[in-house]
């Protein structure tokens, strides 16, 4: 059966990310005093889901060979908005959720429009829009506070049937509802094609703009989902600079660990999920080894540095030095 070999080749980055995650998680669990209990899984999954959602959002843009530095701000903005809207009766709550997600979608669409039609570089355009989104978040929540429909929040961060963490099911649902259709649509394929080789994509008559715009819009939607989930997790909203910038930077790290190429065209959202899981687990490893939690950031940084340096081994195969400069 050669069939699965091609599948392997296509999913290489994702599978490596999965491997790293399983490896890290195995170390984590075997050294965890409680072992793999539903409670341990629930806590780990909740924290990881937050980063995973943001990383998925980042991955969508990175696939088109762009970068979104406003991801963290959209995340924080939707968090603040949700802390106002997602409460009350089930109908009100549902309406609130729709509104929060629409705002996420809108933010992403604005990014895409500015990049595509304003012809600005994604990196600078999203620095600007990020400031605006964060400003709006501050307007909504100058001080931390607000509340959320706690029944829903507890359900989303709890366990299904007492075993499976709901957040994992939630992630799975997002993959099925958003990623699978997108990756099989013409727009999704155009996003990949544009990221892989915009020139070839043009020559082949691929709808480049439609693909990129869809990717940015969905990216905003996913970041909004992340913000919503953060509200479930903390029961409140906070316009924190620290969490905006941390999540933006971590999302890039998770995407890279997840096998999504920053040059575009390679990788998948699922890889980004595992990248986020792995990145979180690296951070948590310190606790189970009874090492001082102080070492956590350093450990995270060194592992990240090692992982990306490892990726440059392919350089040794370059035989024409002009290929260094693309």
């Amino acid at each position: 059966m050669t069939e699965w070999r091609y599948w392997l080749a296509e999913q290489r980055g994702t599978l490596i990310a999965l491997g790293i995650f399983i490896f890290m998680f195995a170390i984590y669990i075997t050294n965890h005093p409680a072992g793999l209990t539903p409670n341990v899984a629930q806590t780990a999954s909740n924290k990881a889901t937050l980063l995973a959602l943001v990383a998925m959002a980042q991955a969508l843009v990175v696939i088109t060979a762009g970068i979104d530095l406003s991801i963290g701000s959209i995340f924080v903005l939707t968090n603040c908005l949700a802390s106002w809207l997602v409460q009350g009766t089930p109908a009100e709550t549902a309406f609130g959720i729709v509104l929060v997600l629409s705002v996420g979608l809108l933010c992403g669409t604005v990014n895409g429009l500015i990049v595509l039609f304003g012809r600005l570089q994604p990196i600078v355009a999203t620095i600007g829009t990020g400031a605006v989104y964060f400003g709006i978040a501050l307007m909504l929540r100058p001080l931390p506070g607000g509340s959320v429909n706690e029944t829903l929040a507890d359900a989303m961060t709890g366990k299904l049937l007492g075993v499976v963490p709901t957040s994992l099911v939630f992630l799975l649902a997002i993959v099925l509802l958003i990623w699978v259709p997108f990756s099989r649509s013409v727009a999704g394929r155009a996003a990949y094609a544009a990221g892989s080789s915009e020139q070839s994509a043009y020559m082949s008559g691929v709808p480049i703009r439609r693909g990129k715009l869809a990717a940015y819009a969905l990216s905003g939607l996913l970041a909004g989902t992340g913000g919503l989930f953060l509200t479930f997790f903390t029961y409140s909203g906070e316009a924190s600079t620290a969490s905006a910038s941390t999540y933006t930077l971590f999302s890039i790290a998770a995407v890279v660990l997840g096998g999504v190429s920053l040059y575009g065209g390679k990788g998948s959202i699922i890889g980004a999920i595992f990248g986020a899981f792995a990145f979180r687990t690296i951070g948590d490893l310190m606790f189970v080894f009874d090492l001082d939690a102080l070492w956590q950031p350093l450990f995270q940084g060194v592992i990240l540095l090692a992982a990306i340096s490892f990726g440059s081994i392919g350089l040794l195969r370059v035989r024409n030095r002009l290929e260094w400069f693309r």
Partner: protein
Amino acid sequence: MSEALPMRTVKRIPKFLRRADPAILTAFGCIVALIIVGSVYSPSFLSTDYLLQQLKVASFLGVIATGMMLVILLGQIDLSVPWVVAGGAMMACAATAYGPVAAALAIPFGIFCGTAFGTLNGFGVAYLRIPSMIVTLATNAVAQGLMVVYTGGFAPRDSATNAMRYLATGALVPGVPNAVVVWALVGAGMVFMLTKTRFGRAVYGIGNRERAAYLSGVNTRRVVLIAFAISGGLSALGGVLLAGYASKAAQAMGDAYLLPAIAAVVLGGTSILGGKGSYLGTVAGVILITLLQSILSVIQMPEAGRQIIYGVVIISMLLLYGRTPSKG
């Protein structure tokens, strides 16, 4: 005849204006407009005291943006600014704990640490050819990790040396804050380097077309390495100044400088794709951003509104002149 008229109008514009980049002119125009708007609000905006105070505040960002500009000219980016700033500041302050000799060397030591981080960035970008966005991000994480371990996660106890305080807040020339002098020296050095040296030419060449620079026999990898090292050193110097200003280092002191530094460079007309830009533009960008922040705070605009205006200004100025040429 038809050609003579525009020629004469062109000649009436002073030479330096004709040659100047429209981006820089726009940025300076905005600065003047901001001062005028501010002075309508309060006449103290036109006082030398206020303007010097603004220059002093701008000089911290100015020093950091100088390094950022060098890297952006290469077509790269340095996302390690936050913790290299903090690291430089903390290491300089830390030196005070090791006796008077160490204290005397505090400033060079802080800068040295920043340069070391910058070198790490440069090695990753130039020799391992990892995209600068990732390498500098990882270096930022490593620097953060080191600093957290060193300080135990608390605000560092060591305070800035007298020399650091003097450098940031003193005034060697009466009336002119030393921080401004430091920025002026750094800026002068940068201008000299960019315009008069082989290294500066190589930076522009690589930013425009690394392939052509390499085939012209420039050691492009070494140039990139050095540029990142300089950027790291300047970030650390910015941190040293900030620590001197606040009398001590703090955990997240550099966070507020990454995006403004990039924005200042880009608003000053330096292309984010590299190869094009002048230091004068970066000066304009730095002053513009500082003034904007100051005026918004003086008119008691809440932080929220400041962020929004800040973002809108960046986007709209870039839409005016920062667009990539259409592919036709």
